[in-house]
């Protein structure tokens, strides 16, 4: 073991922290306010930051998509997967991008902890395939996608998009639970089921023992 040593004092960062009482992350800085408030729709929206709370939909509208995702507290798994896979980093998104973002609950229902850790630590190619199955070229509202009836994700899969009452369903199984977030050149629709080709490995018992 190296001898314990005093942590380097990040004085400048600390002062910044103290002065702004805010994160050092660029994404936390106020974005240019859009002309109108952003309306998101779906049963989950009420459980996400709303009104003037940090991370509210209007605030997120000017953020890069990756930064916007960090403010949606039900997307911790997907956000990390997108980041780890690098699927957006190498992508030309000047034409816009649509992100179908499964909730943490959706991932918990899909993958066991072991599968997920393997995807995140070793099988990055497979992870990238999984993530791209949730990306669509162009920034589309759910209304636009539903009107088209089908769409194609970046992994080459054609998804049906159906509308039943207020609910928009992708690929016959993933319902939008909070749709129409805006981010810079992006639309984000939170869905309740993981898409893509990977098999289900969760056994329904919740996560493992401590």
């Amino acid at each position, binding site marked *: *073991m*190296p001898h*314990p*040593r*005093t*942590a*380097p*004092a*990040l*004085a400048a*960062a*600390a*002062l*910044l*922290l*103290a002065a702004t*009482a*805010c*994160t*050092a*992350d660029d994404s*936390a800085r106020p974005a240019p306010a859009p002309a109108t408030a952003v309306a998101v*729709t779906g049963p*989950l*929206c*009420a*459980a*996400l*930051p709303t009104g003037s*709370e*940090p*991370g509210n939909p209007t605030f997120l509208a000017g953020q890069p998509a990756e930064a916007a995702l*960090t*403010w*949606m*507290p*039900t997307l*911790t*798994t997907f*956000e*990390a997967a997108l*980041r*780890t896979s690098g699927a957006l980093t190498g992508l030309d998104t000047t034409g816009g991008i649509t992100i179908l973002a499964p909730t943490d609950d959706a991932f*918990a229902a899909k993958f066991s*902890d072991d599968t*997920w*850790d*393997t995807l*995140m*630590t*070793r099988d990055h190619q497979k992870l990238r395939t999984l993530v791209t199955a949730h990306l669509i070229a162009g920034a589309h509202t759910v209304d636009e996608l539903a009107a088209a009836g089908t769409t194609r994700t970046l992994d080459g899969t054609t998804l049906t998009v159906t509308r039943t009452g207020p609910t928009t369903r992708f690929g016959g199984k993933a319902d939008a639970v909070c749709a129409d977030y805006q981010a810079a050149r992006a639309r984000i629709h939170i869905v309740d089921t993981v898409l893509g080709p990977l098999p289900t490995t969760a056994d329904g*018992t*919740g*996560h*493992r*023992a*401590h």
Partner: protein
Amino acid sequence: MRRRNILIALSTLLAVSLVATPASARQQDTPAPHQVTDLTVDQADGYATLAWQPVPDATDYQIERTAVDATDTPTGPPTIVGIWRPNRQINQTSPTFADAGFHPGDRFRWRVRARIGTTEQPWSEPVAGTTTAPWGNPDTPGEQLRTQWETTRAAQYTSDTDEYAYTAAIDQLSDRVRVVEIGRTVRDRPINMFVIGYPTPPATPAAVAATAPVAINCNVHGNEPGDREACLIMARQLAFSTDQRVTDLLSHTTVLIVPTINGDGRAANTRGNSTGQDLNRDYSLIRQPETAAYVAMIRDYRPVAGYDGHEYGNSRAGDLPMLPPRHQNVAQSIFDESQDMIEGHMYREGAQAGWWACPYGCEGGGNVGLSEETILRNTLGLKNVVNSLLELRSSGGQTRPDEGNTANNRRRKTYSALWTFHQFLDYHRAQLADITTARAQAITGQAANTGRLVFRGSRPIPAHPAPHPGDSPPPLDAPRPDLILDNPPCAYRLTEEQYHGARTDGPGGTGTTVAQRLAAHGWKVVKTGDSYYVPLNQPERGLIPLLLDAQGVENLTDGERVYPTLTGKRTGPLTVTGFACLAGATVTGPVTVRPGATLVATGSTITGPVTATGAAGVLLADSTVTGPVRITGTTDAISLIDVTVTGPVDLARNTTGADTPLLAGTTVRGPLTCAGNAPAPINLGITNTVHGPRTDQCAAL
């Protein structure tokens, strides 16, 4: 849509309010049958404790919360936020519920009603209160610091970089805090530890160890971050609070907080570290740098009590499932004291504060909470540390229906962890004498190397008496017959290849050597001849076979069992030239340990001088020596634990390198002289009784 729903709810509420009787008149009314009465609310950090008079025959209670403004006019819809059930607390006469999840600082009104069967009874009169704002005056330097999690209202967890900045700011602004880096993750993220004492923390790990410190491990699984946020908030409170309780606590011990040993996993939101290794299956094997750092910290700082924070997916569990070290090799006294901390303290205090502490498992726990020594809870127990696992139930479950809102869910978890960690400090403060007694018993008992060893198998945890918080204790997990060793060896012998050979079980296929890992554990190893011996008469006796015996379920290497060389009576001089092990032996005559040789003894009586000059090792435990004991020039290891010496004891010019000589729980009827030893001997907090003068390095032992 949503806005309209709120408006409808608001107008309904207003209508109800309009027909309600004015408050002044209400108070004189006789309560309706089965109406909850005497509802009170007490505010604390991140939660509000509701308490009321029980209603006869109530099946359960519903807790309703409504956001209100300063004039107590509702600003949001009433919401059922809690269900109180009888298994929630150990006493039924004073029901309490810790409501949490709201943004701290907001004002609310609460009501409680009983249900009999499924029939709802009348609501209580409301109580209103402003909840406690996030800790720390925004205008006071230091106190004003906030984590990313706090400033984003729990929408984001505190990132690695924000943690470092926050940690460094506390370090800089508080004299009570020193932040040390105890290691680095696989991806080279720093693993920091707050060392907190009052007015300042002791300067060295050994000086900290002398204060019987407590250690909190906040984030081992990267996707279970709730405890970590509590730790960061608590570090700020301990660093800057002028509250008399806090300064008193910190005047009597040192608090060690490791916010994130798994920074790589936290950044990726994965359970394991960046290699996919579950770190809470690695605390004995220490294949990974993160766990090795924590174990070496335990060796150097020697906490006497610990908590290990997790989250738990069982939605039927209580708020705060807890579990002591259960492996059967853990000393009974450590198990008992840990159980007392959980069932004696946390259950009782939980019933006061309204938190549902419960045994691990609770309802539908499954086959979890077992004896793996790879789990920190058990590893710490085997290191004679009173400790508990802490789980935060991941979901709102059946008793907190308003946690579909993620921020509410996150805040409940974090503030329940904050409550637990503060209670842990209070327990340590109140029970330190009991804790140190349990630890002393454990260390002397372990070093005596008596009784069977088990490789896997738990002590039973009986169900807490009804109405217990919890319906099912963790599984019995008794040891299988093939995992019991009735005849413990004296030591394990390792070859050069086993001890120093290259290993492949670490990150990237490179592992540290067995030598490095045993050193991180702080075990005494002696080299005699071509072999390395690890005697069992050491404080961590219960853990040694799990790593070095071929029968160990997850062992490091297949060491050779070495059995005692002398067990009966012997009269006449005994000269040790190789590795000698006395167990239950009676020797009448002088014992001489030659250069390079090793003497290990337990349960033995020696009448005659014991002289070791240039020995590799001298390790005596649970034994009696009549005659002078002179140990000089030892090269590898010295240990005298629970030895009674009638005559002088002289430890001189021993140079044992990385090994610190132990002199603990020993009685010397004569002078005790220690001079020129490097390192100087220590007593592990177990004082020695010396009837003669003590000098030099042993003056304070």
